[in-house]
């Protein structure tokens, strides 16, 4: 029997849904499952019993909380897709609106992180879900440095003086063989404290990691502080909001 799927969007840019729709395995996905609730492309009001729920976007309204609770009741397994649903996402930057991860309100069975999730990761996860296998994205993994293309031979200590958040526009060029680690070049890269699995999309294009894949194991917040305490951020880039709240909302927000 085909598993019944529910796909719901909360507050967000719907980038994750777009990624989902543009997956090369999406036709196969449609074939092997029965989608019963997907407001993005179909008109259904009622939430029926189903096997797998995929939730995208962060929680920012009370009505969404009710919806989530309903979904949880009717579904066997609930997964959050993307950084917004997983950790709060970019709306955490706002000072007024609340941007909470789904897991704050309901119990979830797993997070597929990324902003948006890399198509390979998302595709693999979906296949696993259909085949009733466990997705293992949630299991603590190594950090981004483990497989980083900029990793030199036996890299000792990186540069401790960080003067830039982003490289100069003219320096944003795809990685070549002799490109140095961002931290060595004095550019802030959150790779050491970010979960591996995104295949270094940004880094390969010449941009440092911003941490969209979420924290490795401890909380993102404390990891960031532990990390930054080791390096010297120059005064002018001490814009902590951008570093801390771009993708996740710490418990102790100012």
């Amino acid at each position, binding site marked *: 029997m085909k598993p019944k799927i529910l796909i719901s969007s909360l507050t967000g840019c719907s980038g994750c849904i777009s990624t989902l729709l543009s997956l090369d395995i999406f036709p196969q996905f449609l074939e092997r499952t029965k989608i019963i609730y997907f407001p993005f492309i179909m008109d259904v009001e009622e939430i029926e019993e189903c096997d797998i729920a995929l939730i995208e976007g962060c929680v920012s309204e009370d009505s969404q909380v009710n919806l989530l609770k309903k979904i949880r009741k009717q579904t066997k397994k609930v997964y959050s897709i993307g950084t917004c649903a997983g950790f709060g996402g970019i709306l955490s930057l706002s000072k007024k609106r609340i941007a909470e991860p789904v897991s704050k309100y309901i119990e979830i069975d797993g997070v597929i992180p990324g902003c948006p999730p890399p198509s390979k990761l998302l595709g693999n996860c979906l296949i696993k879900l259909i085949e009733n296998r466990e997705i293992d994205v949630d299991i603590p993994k190594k950090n981004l440095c483990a497989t980083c293309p900029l990793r030199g031979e036996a890299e000792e200590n990186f540069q401790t003086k960080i003067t830039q958040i982003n490289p100069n526009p003219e320096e944003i060029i795809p990685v070549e063989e002799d490109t140095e680690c961002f931290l060595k070049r004095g550019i802030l890269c959150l790779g050491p404290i970010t979960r591996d699995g995104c295949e270094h999309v940004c880094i390969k294009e010449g941009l440092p990691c911003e941490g969209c894949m979420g924290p490795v194991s*401890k909380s993102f917040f404390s990891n960031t502080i532990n990390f930054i305490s080791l390096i010297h951020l120059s005064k002018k880039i001490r814009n902590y909001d951008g570093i801390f709240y771009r993708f996740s909302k*710490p418990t102790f927000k100012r």
Partner: protein
Amino acid sequence: MDIYSILSHPFRRKILLILEKEGYIPYTDLMERLNLETTGQLNFHLKKLGSLINKDKKSYFITEDGKKILQILNINKRILSGENVDEYLGAKGSTISRVGVIICNCNTEISNIINVNALENYINKLRNVVSVKIFENLCQQKNFSKITNWVKENFINKIVIAACSPKTHQHLFERIFEKVIEHANIEIANIREQCAWVHHSNGREFDPLLILEKAKLLIEAAIERVIMQKKVKAKRVEIEKSCAIIGGGIGGMTLALNLAKAGIKVYLIEKSPTLGGKVARWDRISNIGDCSICFISELIAELVNEKNIKILTNTEIENVSGEVGNFTIDLIKKPRFVDEKKCTGCKQCIEVCSIEKPNQYEFELTNRKIIYIPFIHSYPFAPIIDEEDIKNCINCRICERACINKAIDLDQKLEKIRIKVGTKVIAIGSDLYSDLEEYHYNPKNDIITSPEFERMLSSDGFTNGDILKISSKVPPESVSIIQCVGPIYNRLEYNDILALKYLESIKQHIPNCEVNVFYDLNKLKENHNSLSTHMDKKFHYVNDLKIIERNNKNIIVANSKEYPSDLIVLNVMMVPNKDLKILRKTMDFTLDDNGFMSEETIASGIYGVGTIFGPLDYNSTISTANNVALKIIALLSKDSLISEFSGIEINEELCGICGLCSKSCPYNAITIESDKLSIDMFKCKGCGTCVSVCPTNAIEMNIDTTEKINRTIEILSKFKKRPKIIAFCCRSCGYAAADDAGLKKISYNPNIFIVQVPCTGRIDTSFIINSFEHGFDGVMIIGCRRNSCRYIDGIEKIQRKIELLKDVLNPKYKKRIIIENMNAVEGIKFAEMVKTFYNQLSEEIKFEA
């Protein structure tokens, strides 16, 4: 129903074994596996199995209890099959925590303030607690067997002692339980210095119930911590009561004598054919006035008479294995071609030998025969042919015929020796700087080095003790000494002493001789500061120094002034022994930045003596030798050694090799080698700074784990009365300051809980956040003074974290984190701080409400 009746039925045992194998198994599959047709029988047995199994989404699995029962079953099976399973039966090896709690009354000191019986009742109900025992005075107990029996009878494998501070009696307690419980499994709840003694004051008493509650929580947290303690890799090593000393110089010999007199078997291993080292060739020892060869020969005589010393000259190290307490060293004794035992030292063989070569013991200034004795008073006093020289021997065998005792054996082969020792000492001394081209070094042209000058002064040297120009063999009218030739390691006093010694000697030999001593400030630039503190008027401190030759005369040009010099002595610096690098591979020690042996190494059964640490004069060498002797005697006086590594461990599955840990390590103990982290166990001091910054939790401490600290925070947060304060105190200073407040019996509010961390650098930001999340109102961090941190800069690291944290936290919390530096005796300051913080927080909480 009891376990035995559950297990009595083979069917139920079968179910358990299937579940163990499969993990989760649905009902229908289970029926199939058991070959059952009807559900009734299975239902009955499943019900009987009770709490041993459980059901989740229609699948059955074994509970924790069930797993334990299975362990018992498996062991039973093995016993029946005749296997020896003692190791599994010993409580020490068990994975199930059975915690015994000891509460010490401390002669009513504790029980006066805390109701010990209420405490006992509460603890008895806690998980994994097997037995609680109250002692009148644990530290004064005469009969320890009573206590260890209690441990054995109750199969206790972990112990919590609620008593005084670990600073006071931890070692005593560890000794009491040494035979039955591992050190890591002993946890101390400090209910005296940090509870009973600080929460009662003369006039105003605090609520006794609050104090009781605090004591309860302190003990509960200690119990939880000890439950979480995993097995620390420990090894028992039987100590070999012997010592290998590598290097038979003055340091090695003094040490050997000290140890031998204390009854320790000593192997004195020397690479060259004789004992004595460099000092044996020097003229005399400064400050003492004794001529060095007289002194050394006396020392050697004493050594030779000591039965406990085995002297192995002409011997090199091939391989070392084993660990502290029990090393096995393989040695190669090179052929001497002369039987030491038969030789009488008549030197007839040397007389008759016809082949000559430059004598390396006189710096190749004179020649010697290829069969030779290095110098008078060398030990063993028997001629030798160097292994490399045997090929130059023309095999005339005249020496053989000249020897009356038939001691010469030109076919001697090398000998392999294996020794077992408890410790090893490296005393191979240092080399002398030899790259002297820029000084136009040439003995034939009267520019010589300080060791050559020493030989000149020495009465058995190549000039028979006269100071002569080597070129013309006449006494010089002027001598110039150039100081600090070679790399400079900041120990200039050594050069001063030498120069003063030379000044004196020259004045004795040639009273009219003009002597100038030069320091080249250009070379000393970096050490200028240390120099200015001990400038000596006898010396010239010049900025520009050159040696020129004019009319066959050497002239030193310094500060544009000319000093004619008949003899120039280059006072060369000591540089790291070139053998250190080779030895390092077999001997397991570390080198410092200059290439000398690093003093960090001392503490791990491998010791160093003498100038391998850098330039040292005679007195300092002797005193380090004596110091090391004491350490070795202390180590070898035990029968066995239990080695526990209480540092860090790396989980490679989680490690992404980002290098944050190696960045944060104050001792550079973590390095990245070929895509793998490696920890230098000798350098690691267990401060835990790396653990606090590891983003993937790949590094964990063996004892002070993150899990334990977080659990402690959780338990302590159960305290009801607000404001609640948690204080993270570093082991050496903060915690000691808190104890000091207790010892001085300064009272403060019971609302503060002290959590011990090895170093403030260990504090992970998540501990602080965790504390706030669990309802603590204030966080205190107390570490060492800024420039005296026990772990170099742990306090500065936490300071940076706190600064960042305060930048990001809700302003409300900014005032709720305080960080303070204290030393171990500032109990008064500690108590004051707690009181002020308490008052501040109570005000804020009142305002909030």
